[in-house]
């Protein structure tokens, strides 16, 4: 279970790190060929810099200036990191390593698998071989390649044809320590007509780096609701990639809240590969002073009758930065695509900076696409209106920010998670709004 701590620095010999890792991994999780391929891609691409178009607005130089070691999993965990969700299925990972003692398993319908990738490698090697690393998208993303080469464990959720997995699967990714790199991996496979829900939590203590990849394959008529909450430690880096492919008439709902980390970025690629596939993405970023949070999305409408909706909101304080970069690509022949994108930013400080890059690439006529972006300050008329009713200025400002962010929180389908997000928002506002 425990992995020896390697002192190999990030900037050093990657091949050596991979060789050491391959020696430790169970056979079914080795994927030697894939890992070597991924490493070659990472080495060719290198850590992205400002000259890369996709990284123009996000700066990794602070990260590059440090070196990291592979993180060990056998670390004590502070109780405040054990955020809970009311569900029987919970898998925890400490620095990317499965933590059985922080996990619990509920009863599952026949054929459903919920467990670590290492467990999946034992029980479902063929399924793993057919699915892991097979979802297209983010091919040019160096950090996803780095995860592909060096991930050590992660979560696997498999739901067979026509089966519904009751209750969400809660995945906790806990980072602990300084200058450690943890690279968890998530694989979700829903066969045709299957249904499931997943909540990923990212949090921790220290100056660690989470470089995570989530891979999702949704069969025809299947439905997945996926919630991700990034509330990493204030000194941590969070880089997360998510790629999903959707079959005919499938439905994917993503809800993504980003609040933690000194630097947090998500890269999301959705391939609406089957006709009639529908994808909805809701995002909320609570950006603090001197913090950068970014979301980069590609919605690829490959075939007709797909629909997608992106609705991202950012609240920014101090010298916070928020980047929303959303590309809708409608392929030739993807007739009657319905794609909408909206990004709204609320600046609570004159020094905050929001960057919105809406992009549409449409290669046929018969489509309905729209995008909208707003960036603004709090409505001072509304602040005054509330004050004339006896509500104090600070409370009035909080009330208005709460109203802006509340739409996201209210749509989260789990009461305990909604409460946690409310508390997070309250903390955020208590510190920042005068």
């Amino acid at each position: 279970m425990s992995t020896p701590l390697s002192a190999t620095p990030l900037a050093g010999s990657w091949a050596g790190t991979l060789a050491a890792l391959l020696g430790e991994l169970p056979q079914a999780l080795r994927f030697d060929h894939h890992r070597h391929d991924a490493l070659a891609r990472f080495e060719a691409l290198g850590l992205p810099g400002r000259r890369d178009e996709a990284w123009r607005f996000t700066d990794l130089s602070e990260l590059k200036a440090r070196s990291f070691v592979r993180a060990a999993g056998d670390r004590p965990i502070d109780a405040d990191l054990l955020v809970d969700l009311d569900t029987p299925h919970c898998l925890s990972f400490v620095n990317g390593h499965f933590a059985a003692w922080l996990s619990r398993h509920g009863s599952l319908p026949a054929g459903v698998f919920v467990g670590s990738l290492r467990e999946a490698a034992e029980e479902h090697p063929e399924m793993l071989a057919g699915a892991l690393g097979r979802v297209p998208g983010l091919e040019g993303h160096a950090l996803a390649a780095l995860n592909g080469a060096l991930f050590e464990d992660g979560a696997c959720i498999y739901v067979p044809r026509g089966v519904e997995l009751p209750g969400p699967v809660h995945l906790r990714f806990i980072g602990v320590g300084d200058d450690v790199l943890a690279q968890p991996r998530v694989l979700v496979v829903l066969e045709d007509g299957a249904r499931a829900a997943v909540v990923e939590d990212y949090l921790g203590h220290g100056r660690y780096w989470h470089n995570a990849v989530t891979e999702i394959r949704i069969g025809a008529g299947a439905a997945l609701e996926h919630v991700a909450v990034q509330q990493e430690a204030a000194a941590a880096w969070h880089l997360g990639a998510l790629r999903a492919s959707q079959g005919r008439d499938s439905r994917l709902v993503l809800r993504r809240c980003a609040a933690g980390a000194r630097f947090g970025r998500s890269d999301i690629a959705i391939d609406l590969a089957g006709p009639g596939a529908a994808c909805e993405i809701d995002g909320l970023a609570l950006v603090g002073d001197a913090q950068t949070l970014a979301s980069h999305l590609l919605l690829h409408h490959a075939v007709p009758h797909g629909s997608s909706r992106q609705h991202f909101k950012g609240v920014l304080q101090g010298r916070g930065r928020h980047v929303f970069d959303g590309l809708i690509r409608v392929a030739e022949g993807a007739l009657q695509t319905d794609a909408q994108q909206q990004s709204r930013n609320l600046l609570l400080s004159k020094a905050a900076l929001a960057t919105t890059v809406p992009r549409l690439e449409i290669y046929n006529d018969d489509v309905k696409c729209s995008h909208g972006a707003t960036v603004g300050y709090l409505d001072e008329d509304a602040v005054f209106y509330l004050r004339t009713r006896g509500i104090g200025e600070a409370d009035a400002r909080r009330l208005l920010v709460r109203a802006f962010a509340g739409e996201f929180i209210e749509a989260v389908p789990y009461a305990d998670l909604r409460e946690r997000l409310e508390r997070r928002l309250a903390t955020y506002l208590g510190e920042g709004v005068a």
Partner: protein
Amino acid sequence: MIEISNLHASVDDREILRGIDLRIGAGEVHAVMGPNGSGKSTLANVIAGRPGYTVTAGQVLYRGRDLLELEPEERAREGVFLAFQYPVEIPGVNNLYFLKAAVNAIRKHRGEAELDALDFMERVQARAGLVKMDEAFLKRPVNEGFSGGEKKRNEILQMAVLEPTFAVLDETDSGLDIDALKVVADGVNALRNPERAFLVITHYQRLLDYIVPDVVHVLVDGRIVESGGPELALALEERGYGAFGRHGGASRRAGA
């Protein structure tokens, strides 16, 4: 209750109010009428404490206290209410939640316990009936998507729930049809009592058929140029504001 003396106020360095004197006693309803740009809304906003309005001279005493040194929320908690000419839409804030936050902020200031949910609902429902407001509006975001008339009724509902001591109605009649006007006037009349004072600002005499004032003031060019009983409003309707031409004799006469 309220004593305004020699009040001068500017917006963006432009002097709008040029020496207002006005005394309103408890239980009285005063109307201020005047042409567009005469300073009516500025007077309302200065009383409520809107940022951007600078008082350059004069004072406003409210129950013996200097009103101008209080923050807008402190004025509200002390019982001053402004019904807005253009009520603000606040997406995402439920009307009922907003009312409850306001009521409890004021109660807290008075050292009273917060109203429990049941008492609060009873109070709001009773007042909503007063302005013939459908309860569905209570669950909607504040003023969002409300018609002009609904927004004004919502202002009167807030007034009825907050029970101010001194209420200023800034052109509450503007944009209302006759039925909505009656509803609003009935709401105000129901709240008239010997402890409460009103300042009703309007461009037209029409509202004063329904809310009959004790005193009518005519505001022209930032000064009150004439004051009288309700009959003054009728006379104004006859002869218009033309008689008080800018920098005209009437203005000088009443400024004395």
